[in-house]
Structure formats: structure tokens, C-alpha cells
């Protein structure tokens, strides 16, 4: 699958809530070949300060449009949030390996469970869309209600959504991984897919191992090149260091060494 660099036209760049933004740009090539779990690498400025591109998961595609959602954290995402529809955005993608999933499950058979932490919902919506027949169960965790994203999108896809918040303002009061434990007492899923903060992924991985369920985890690491050239974004696996940008960002939990 070919990587392309495009000056993509921005269609819209809107605030969702709080620090969360939704951006849509046009790129037929990327839209055509993008897989759930892959990401794009964005150049937010023409100059060299900030220097590096910013990796952002592909949230979805429709026709020749590519959607991302991002959280404004520092310089780069702040500048990204100032972009206007009609402007050009320098994008490289699609990058990395997506989730290993079965697009069609035996109907009536075991569900997949998708576990998202914060902005980690981004790639999981794309995944939920691609999994036909037996729709996955969605577990979303966040600090507080206002930071829970995409519940409507998941429901529109026909997915059941359960929530957990640290402050109990929505769903279970506690961690999404606590929610996962509760759920696993009833359901025996075929596979877990998760994206979110590192500690959360670590816990999901442990739970998966204890319950002998396969889990696919999407990791983050600081990236310089995004295309596997600099060896900067490595994570420790049973086969040594692997590149999150090229060998990942999705890894199966058995590979990873925490």
C-alpha cells in the first residue's frame, strides 16, 4: 500500500468540545487506501518551528474525504486548530499498520469489544464502522463527561456504548478498565481493540492475558519521521525494539513487553 504526500484541501476544522477539534480534508489517495488504526502525519506550519510533523489517527473516510479528531495540547495542535477550510494541509499517509480484525463475524457469535481512553476513540470509530454483522461493544473512558467523544457516532453505527468517568459524571465512576472487567464477567468477546493512554493500554493488555483474549493495542510514541526511517519511535517487543510508526501503531498484546 503506497504512502503519499499531498497538499490536501481542508474542508472544515471545527471545535467539538473543550480542547477537541474535528478536521476534514480531501485526499482521494489516502481515503481510498486508509485502514482503521492507520494514521497521517501533518505538517502544521511552512517553516521549521515547530520542526516536526504531528501524527494523528485516521478517524474515518467518506468518499475522497479523510476525517481526524485531535486534542489541542501544545504548539503543533494549537497551530492546527487555527487552520481554516479552503487552506492546504501538507499530509503524509496513510501510515503504519492498522488493526487486525475480521470484517465479518459469525452472526450470533462472540462480539469484539473496543476500549477507548479519551481521544483514543478516534481510530476506533473507523474500526467499528468496518466490522460488519456483529457490531462491537464500545467502552469509553474519560476524566469527565465533557471529555467523552463520539458516542453518537458509535450508536449511529449500531454499537452499544458503555461509559466510565473518573468523576462519575457519566456511566461508571472509575476507570474504563474497571468497566471492562465488569463486562467480561458477562460477555466472552472474540477480541479486544484498544486505543488510549499508555497506562490504560497496559491494564487492558493484562486483563486480556488473564482472560485469554486476543487484544490489539494502538500505541503512541514521539515520532520524527513517521515512515520508519529514523528509528525514533520504538517500543520494546518480544522481537526487540519495533517502530510504532511502521511496525505499529497497532500491536497485539502478546508481542509487547511493558
Amino acid at each position, binding site marked *: 500500500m503506497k504512502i503519499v*504526500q499531498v497538499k490536501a484541501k481542508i474542508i472544515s476544522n471545527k471545535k467539538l468540545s473543550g480542547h477537541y477539534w474535528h478536521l476534514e480534508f480531501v485526499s482521494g489517495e489516502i481515503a481510498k487506501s486508509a485502514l482503521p488504526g492507520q494514521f497521517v502525519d501533518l505538517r502544521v506550519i511552512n517553516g*521549521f518551528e515547530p520542526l516536526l510533523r504531528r501524527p494523528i489517527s485516521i478517524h474515518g473516510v467518506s468518499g475522497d474525504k479523510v476525517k481526524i479528531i485531535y486534542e489541542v495540547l501544545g504548539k503543533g495542535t494549537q497551530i492546527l486548530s487555527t487552520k481554516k477550510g479552503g487552506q492546504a494541509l501538507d499530509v503524509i499517509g496513510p501510515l503504519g499498520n492498522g488493526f487486525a480484525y475480521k470484517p465479518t463475524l459469525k452472526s450470533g457469535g462472540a462480539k469484539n469489544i473496543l476500549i477507548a481512553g479519551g481521544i483514543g476513540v478516534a481510530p476506533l470509530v473507523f474500526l467499528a464502522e468496518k466490522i460488519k454483522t456483529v457490531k462491537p461493544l464500545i467502552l469509553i473512558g474519560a476524566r469527565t463527561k465533557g471529555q467523552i467523544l463520539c458516542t453518537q457516532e458509535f450508536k449511529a453505527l449500531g454499537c452499544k456504548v458503555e461509559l466510565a468517568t473518573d468523576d462519575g459524571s457519566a456511566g461508571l465512576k472509575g476507570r474504563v478498565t474497571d468497566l471492562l472487567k465488569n463486562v467480561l464477567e458477562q460477555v466472552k468477546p472474540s477480541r479486544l481493540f484498544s486505543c488510549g493512554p499508555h497506562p490504560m493500554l497496559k491494564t487492558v493488555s493484562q486483563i486480556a492475558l488473564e482472560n485469554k483474549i486476543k487484544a490489539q493495542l494502538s500505541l503512541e510514541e514521539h515520532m520524527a519521521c513517521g515512515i520508519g526511517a529514523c528509528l525514533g519511535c520504538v*517500543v520494546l517487543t518480544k522481537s526487540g525494539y519495533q517502530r510504532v510508526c511502521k511496525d505499529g501503531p497497532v500491536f497485539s498484546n502478546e508481542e509487547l513487553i511493558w
Partner: protein
Amino acid sequence: MVKGINPNLSVTIGKLVLKNPVMVASGTFGYAEEFRDLIDLRKLGAIVTKTITIKRRHGNLPPRTCETSSGMLNSIGLENPGIDNFIQKKLPFLKSLGIPIIVSIAAEESPEEFEILIKQLDKINEVSAIELNISCPNQQKDKLISQDAKATFELISAARKLTQKCLIAKLSPNVTSISEIALACASAGSDALALINTLSGMSIDVKKRVPKLGAWAGGLSGPAIRPIAVKMVWDVYNKIKIPIIGMGGIVDTESALEFIIAGSTAVSVGTVNFVNPQASIEIIAGLKQYLVDNNIQNLNNLIGRLKACKD
């Protein structure tokens, strides 16, 4: 407006003839295959590989990169598959490109490792030149070879005996006198000098009070270091007569020209490959245009042509 001339971009480094002076810097271009989808690799003057060691190296603890003001730190730690895997798995694609391939090599423990690596590479026709990385700040050593003129002279003399191939010495800017080291390289028979490797640097996460790199410190690269690199090229150009491959913060034609005018026979494009993979190709076109606009027939007539500044 384009004048009638068709300038000659070709330059010579020792035995090595380049169709244009733009190469890509070691460690910033992987093994080229990573960029195959993004640029026409055959247009490059040459490709310098990631530094190779005898045995596979796993590299340093992550995080391995962090952004700094107009620059970045890296502490990759020379992760590479080792010479045998390199020759089997990486070299074939590089060979297929039909452009000069420069293999960068380094020793982990003793300088003798260089000799073993050189003997192995000397046999391979498609290896056009060998770059001796004696300046990697990420090996957590007390002193780099290129921080010691005597050690540098001895290493390069030994290397020189083992191959007729073009030998390039890559030097560290973390020295009191770059020309002293450059002189040692020249007298030992090095064909060219690669200036500069990264500067030793460190960045701190003040909230956590930890270094931003897993290896604590790393090497600084990018536009931030360009004035330092240009000055070292100029110093060496005025003292030592072997060709210089200039690098350090090159991002576009203008910054590449700074290095050529300061005395670089060729330039190496590094960190910017991560930001704008097209940079090297754009620079090749940009250099040609500059020669046309300034009615300069041959790029060699631009090398080191810095004049005194007056109104």
C-alpha cells in the same frame, strides 16, 4: 528569467563522481527504501546509509527523539541490523537504484571493528564510498574518536591501508578545533570530510524533572545548528584541501548554498527529510536555477566563493 546556460552540477569527492552535490545524511534516510514512495531516489547525488556496526545493535532506551527550538534531539544509539543483515536485506534495494551508495560504519568497542567492516565492504562493487562515523554522540563514551586528533589519525591511517574506495571521515562539532581534527584526517589519507555530526545536547521535562530522552542526552540537529556548521565548514575549507561534505540544518536551496559558498563540495540533507521529504529533490533543482540565474556554468566555481562584505 532563465538564461541560455545549462549549468554543470557534477562534483568529485576523491574517486567518487556525483551527478549533483546533494546527498542524504546518515541516519536521516534509513536505507532509502522508506522514502521510495515519496521521492524519485534516482535523482539524488548519493545516499548515505544509517551507520552499520558488525553486530546488530538494539539502540537506546526510548523516548529517542524530542523537539527543540528549530531543532531536535535524537538518541537512537546506532540501532542497526549488523553488517551481514545489512548486506543481505538492505543493500540489494540500494544497489538497484544505480546511484552512488555510501555506507556509514562505526565501531562499538574497539577501532579494530572498523577494519573488519571495511574489509567486508571493500569487496562490494556497488559500495561507492565508506563513511567512518567517528562522531556519534549516542554511544555514551567518554570521548569520541574524532575528539582526539591522534586517535583519528591512527584510525584513518589503518582504514586507508585496507581499501581504495573513497573514504569519508564524519566529524563531531564538539571539539576545540575542528581544523585540527580535519588536518589529522587529511594527513591520514581520508578522501573527504563530512561536517558536521550532531552536537551533544539535552532537554528536560521540568514537570516530571526527568530528561526528555531515555538516554538522558542526545544529538542536536536541524536549522538551529546551521550557523555552527557553516562556520566549521568555512574554517576547515580555509585550512585543509580535501573536499568537504557540508551538513547541519540544511532545509532548502538557500541553506544548501550557504554550505557550498562556505566551501562544501557536496551537501548532505538530514533532519529536513523528516519534515519535507521533497527537500533534497527541491534543492537539486534550486541549485541549478541559482547557477542559471547567476550565469555560473559549473557548480565547482561556487564552492568556497565567499567574498568580504561591503555595501
